[in-house]
């Protein structure tokens, strides 16, 4: 319950945050909403020596239309995305998914940047970023770069961020009135997904993402290709388990999870108009 001791530093600007990251290197972790990191620290599964609080960098909290994309500041709270008019109109699946992460209290604190940078395959937002063909914008001492969501999730809890970089923005293609489906199987409403599936119709076609079907958030290329080739939702969903490596635990065996993935992908595709 009580974290190990650490030094607390507050960054009031992006430049300051990067400076502190450079200074403290591996000793430091970034603290945004704290709802991925603090639970780990309370169980002493993480014991960073330094915490850099970036939760007050207001300039990184926004949802706006920007050059054909919906651009969301990394420090935007889930609740603010869920209630944002811009998000609800132009990226409705993202607004919906943000609005059902955890519980209301978690949504008042957790941030999209914190969630995505954490790289948890059981989180909902990474799968949405993948399905929408999103882009992650990061900044470090050497400047700004953009990373395609497909290239962002490297391995289990590991993302393509250098130790001195910050995720500053998440961009998804503008998709007003897009059809979408998001299906999640849980035992209790507040639980992480046993399996989740998201399907989004964008200008590029239908994107499909999977939650908790492998060591990283997954995009379902097999399903997407099938849909692009004219398969029905049921036909395409048969391929949902391809390329997945779900773990087995007391909530689901591998076979069960793969079956559920097929069911949820089919349902999500149907809602996305396939």
């Amino acid at each position, binding site marked *: *319950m*009580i974290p*190990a*001791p650490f030094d607390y530093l507050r960054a009031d600007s992006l430049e300051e945050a990067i400076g502190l990251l450079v200074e403290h290197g591996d000793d430091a972790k970034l603290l945004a909403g704290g709802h991925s990191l603090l639970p780990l620290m309370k*169980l*002493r599964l993480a014991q960073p020596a330094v915490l850099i609080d970036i939760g007050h960098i207001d300039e990184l909290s926004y949802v706006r239309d920007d050059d054909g994309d919906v651009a969301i500041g990394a420090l935007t709270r889930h609740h603010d995305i869920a209630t944002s008019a811009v998000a609800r109109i132009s990226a409705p699946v993202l607004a919906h998914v943000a609005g059902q992460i955890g519980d209301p209290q978690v949504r008042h604190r957790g941030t999209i940047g914190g969630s995505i940078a954490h790289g948890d395959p059981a989180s909902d937002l990474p799968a949405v970023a993948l399905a929408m063909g999103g882009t992650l914008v990061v900044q470090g001492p050497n400047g700004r770069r953009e990373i395609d969501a497909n290239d962002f999730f490297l391995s289990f809890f590991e993302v393509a961020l250098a130790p001195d970089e910050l995720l500053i923005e998440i961009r998804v293609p503008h998709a007003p009135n897009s059809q979408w489906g998001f299906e999640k*199987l849980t*035992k*209790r*409403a*507040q*639980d992480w997904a*046993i399996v989740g599936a998201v399907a989004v119709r964008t200008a590029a076609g239908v994107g499909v993402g999977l939650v908790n079907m492998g060591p990283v958030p997954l995009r379902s290329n097999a399903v997407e290709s099938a849909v692009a080739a004219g398969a029905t939702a049921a036909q395409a969903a048969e391929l949902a388990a391809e390329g997945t490596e779900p773990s087995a*635990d*007391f*909530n*689901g*065996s591998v076979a*069960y999870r793969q*079956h*559920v993935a097929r*069911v*949820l992908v089919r349902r999500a595709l149907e809602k996305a108009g396939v």
Partner: protein
Amino acid sequence: MSILGNRVLRREDPKFLTVGGTYVADLDMPGALHLTFVRSSMAHATITSVDTSMATAMPGVVAAYTHDDLQLANLPTIMGMTNEAMTERILASGTVRYVGEPIVAIVAQSREIAADALERVVVEYEPLTVVIDPVEARKDEALLFPEAGTNTSFALDFGGDAALFDECEVVVEQTLANQRVAPCPLEVRSAAGHMTEDGRLEFGSSTQAPHAVRDTLATFLGLEPDMVHVVTPDVGGGFGAKASVYQEDIIVGWCVHHLGRPVRWTETRSESMLGLGHGRAQIQHVKLGGTREGIVTAYRIEVLQDSGAYTGFGTVLPFMTRVMTPGPYKIAKAECMSISVVTNSTPTTAYRGAGRPEATAAIERMIDIFSREIGMDPAEVRRRNLIGKDEFPFTTPVETIYDCGDYVLALDVALEMAGYDELRAEQQRRRASGDARQLGIGLSSYVEITNGLPGGEFGAVEVQSDGKVIVRTGTSPHGQGHVTAWSMLVAEQMGIAIDDIEVIHGDTDIVPRGGGTMGSRSLQIGGAAVNQAAVDLVEKAKDLAADLFEADRKDIVLDKSNGRFHVVGTPAIARSWGELAAVALANDGTALFAEVDLESVGPTFPFGTHLSVVEVDTETGKVTLLRHIAVDDAGRILNPLLAEGQVHGGIAQGVAQALLEEMIYDADGNPLTSTLADYSFISAAELPSFETRFTETPTPINALGAKGIGESGTIGSAPALHNAVCDAVAHLGVRHIDMPTTPMRVWSAIQEARADNVAESERG
């Protein structure tokens, strides 16, 4: 106008709603030391070394104690009935037998230092063979206590009639798992104490039984009981798991006594998931036999009870299971035998229902399996077997005598509230159309035993000169609303306003003796004791008034509308309670009071019928509870608001067990569900609002006509939900799914049934 039977709002509430309750962790104890425990990370191992030197070297760490430092005896056997070799050590000594077993007690100046010190204690282990499955433990191959020569901690050796089912036309048999669950009160365990200047130990604990805490501490610390003063502050739920005294409580007391300084302890939730006793954990081999016309004629349940690593109250709970073996049914022959075994897991304890939910779960599941076997509606099968309302008192084949009841009425009311025929019609429609979402309807008719353990209760009522009343009770409420309920009883007897009545509980100096609150005993024995004390006090007051008015005793009237005594015919000349109290004091220095030690006449048997309606998504196995109907009868209801609240809470816990919750260990004895993130503690989002009704069949057993209600909701609800889920997929060939009916379990059962069907049709 009687106040009894009214929905009187709780007097307790304003404090909780404005400043919050005062729980042990809220007690203001400046300078108190903090106690915490190093706990075993191994399920079964020899402790080869414990090195506390790095911890004790830390600034702010006062001490680190192991078993040998304390020189304290083991926890006692359970009522003298359990294997003496298997009592729990006060701290692990030589061998650890479950993950979470406390090994070292660390005392430090702050909560933070204590948490840091924990990490600096080094314990080394040599692993021993882990036994997690009670079926394995029963084989007595790997022994938890080699010197005992067995893993059996307790056994009930009744029955065993090999010919029990010989004359049955139909026999159904099933192995049922009544799985291990975690009680999870919102407040974890907590205790604190300090020494007074005159050498008394002042102690507070989050307990259901303050007098047991006092007596246990006195015994362990070698003190006279009157040198220990227990004051129980608010308690955030107990559910049976806080009815026993834990080694941690004793160690807090020992540290206070040994160090002569205030010490406090509050566990973390993760500790509590492993340290607070677990509930249920029975494997049941059940057999039921009867006629093709649906009459049950024979029943046997063989229980394998998981004790956990040491003997706890859970070890002997099969005794209570046996007491309720045949449920509310008239069955000619019924048997229950049990064996309790130790395994490398948290010791089991009483948990809401404590042995009786297990009995009901078994027979209710078998009634449904029997119904399906003979092709009869399960409501009709129940109707044909329920004990009739004119057959009481009724002695069952296991010698339990049920007091009174109208079981068929409860069934009828439940069916009517549910709209049973419409539900079956809807179910048929969905089956016919092959709807992916199937409807399941499940029934549970139950009877249970309350106030089942021996022991009376203390109650006292005193009037002060200002007319205010002080009630003292030996019960120990932790959410049940006794302050409101006992005030109602006293107000009713004495004609005094509820707001002028103070109810004191949980303080062992002020309340000299008491049984605490558990087993749904409190109203019928504790409330009844307070009620009797009030009745006696009215008599005493009338004696006083007769003297005062120089009138005949039989002419004295108590006007309850204003709480004043007068001589019949002259109401204008009256004396109030306060005035009489002052007279009593002036006469001979004694207060106007009455004290009662009410002896228990016997247990009572609440009953009812629950009905669950579920929807099963056959593609994922996910179950949604759509409706839950509960008809319960606890005799005369004192305060329907409080009684409903008890039923609601009970239903949630029963549904939780049937639907979601399970305390899971892997084969190495590592707990997999040791936080509230992993353990599926049910939330509001998984439950509907409940449809509840009381029937009232007053019991002749006590003056209030009241039976207990606290555990009925749990006992009645779990089997209804369980049966509903099995019912939803029965047409697909599924015979049984064990609790909890998680999505994977349900889906797997459907798959297996489909595979069986395919195999069968291929053969046919």
